[in-house]
């Protein structure tokens, strides 16, 4: 019961804080693709893989008082900062859920921009295709982002480094 909520709380605990909804979406997707167990289902949206279930579950965690969501105004745009509350911490302690250690992948992702994670998650979304077709697909569906060849290269290296299955 509430295992899916507990898994997300464990993620937030290991991440310490997450800045940006888009970043959060892409991080969970990349973790899923790396073999970590999250049940949220994704489909392709404007900025790559997106999970409505994840959005609603995070909203639930905020409404339940397990997660803090701070709305911050930055140079012309709004961003959201997520941190775990004490109540979220004690919920996690009392739930007998087995949590996987994701800290090394989370740390690597947290260092990157949401634009970069958007690229990585989009590439992973098409990972049933050969490498050149993945790149062609990214250029088609993300034409407005104008990803460079260097960014593509960096994204492949990143995928290799985090050992995506």
């Amino acid at each position, binding site marked *: *019961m*509430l295992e*899916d*909520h507990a898994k997300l709380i464990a993620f937030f605990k290991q991440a310490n804080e997450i800045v940006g*909804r*888009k970043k959060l*979406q892409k991080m969970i997707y990349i973790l899923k693709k790396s073999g970590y167990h999250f*049940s949220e*289902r994704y*489909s*392709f*949206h*404007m*900025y790559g893989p*997106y999970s*409505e*279930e994840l*959005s*609603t*579950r995070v*909203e*639930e965690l905020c*409404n*339940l*008082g*397990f997660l803090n969501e701070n709305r911050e105004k930055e140079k012309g745009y*709004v961003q959201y900062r997520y941190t775990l509350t004490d*109540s979220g911490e004690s*919920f996690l302690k*009392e*739930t007998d859920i087995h949590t996987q250690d994701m800290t090394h992948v989370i740390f690597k992702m947290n260092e990157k921009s949401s634009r970069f994670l958007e690229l990585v998650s989009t590439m992973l*979304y*098409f990972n049933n295709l050969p490498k050149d077709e993945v790149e062609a*697909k990214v250029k*088609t*569906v993300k*034409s407005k982002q104008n990803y460079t060849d260097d960014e593509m290269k960096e994204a492949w290296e990143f995928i290799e480094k985090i050992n995506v299955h």
Partner: protein
Amino acid sequence: MAYLNEQLSEEKVFKDPVHRYVHVRDQVIWDLIGTPEFQRLRRIKQLGTTYLTFHGAEHSRFNHSLGVYEIVRRIIDNFSEIPEWNQEDRMLTLCAALLHDLGHGPFSHSFEKVFDLDHEDFTREIILGETEVNKVLLKVDAQFPQKVADVIHKTSENKLVVSLISSQIDADRMDYLLRDAYYTGVSYGHFDMERILRVMRPMEDQAVIKYSGMHAVEDYIMSRYQMYWQVYFHPVTRSAEVILTKIFERAKDLYENNYEFKLPPIHFISFFEKNVSLNDYLKLDENIAFYYFQIWQDENDTILKDLCRRFVNRDLFKYVEFNPGAQYRELIELKESFINAGIDARYYLEVDSSSDLPYDFYRQGEDEERLPILLQMPDGELKELSRESDIVEAISGKKRTDHKLYFAEDLIEQLPDDSEHKKRILEILKG
């Protein structure tokens, strides 16, 4: 004449209670409707277990798919003289509309959750794999199946076509709101679709709504809001979903523990073993699932037989409002009391949350992931709907989460009155 443009010798019409008639003139569409994979949708209910709450809700994904096709056909007819619309996209859009739900399985939501499947993957496989649908699409041209799959999965470069099938005001939603309202018999859920279609305009990346049509769109958003709370999130339907999920979980658990079923569950084995082929998937429809629910009532396993009996006879779990934020310690205690009283909490106690449901509300696009509904103002400027509409502003972005605790009340009642566990369980559940 190329197959793409081939017309039937006379127009075919399907009588439809929502759109009155569904018109088919294209040979391609007619051929797709006749494929076994499309006909299979007759055996998948559009609203899963909702018929146990609203007895009229027996309509299928077949009805809905035809409905989405018909709406898109009407939109394209309206667009045909507008320069922003490319008439060469007509057949691609119609096929994507017709086939968008092709991969849904029996009781999709519970089924996909337990067996870790995604109907979108199967939609893609049916369109691209060795199927009759694929053969029809290939006759149009070699790239056509992939183009249709890309539109359905929103990975097509043609964003306008994608937005007609999948956006916050698309043919899919318009059909299911009207259809679900009609078949459930509820009075909300109705809106003036004809008006919306008349004020819809194609732009480069999405269809937008002329400002003069704002009130029709407000009505659509209100319908969506009311249908979510009154029909889709109905607590009794959710109780049936909980039991259905438990049936699949129990059957899987028994199989993994080498339980000998009286009737080998051959249609489920590849699902239990996580190696489902497209053929296995297509064979398992709701008729087959119901057959097993009937048969499993005679199994030796008391939990499986009891859950199936509950589902078939609509003897559902009771529920109370539950706030996991304030009550999670009680939940842990409740679980322990169930176990101590000899009731298997894995199967007879469950928290169901709004995030477990496959429906959403209108969002203004604040997380930049979902295309907002855009109004085209008289001067041509585009504005997001909730900035102009007080009604939409009032209902979007509000608290939209909910949790309920489901339990088998009859099993608790059957415990001896002097049982300490029973007393504690009732105290927690009923205060």
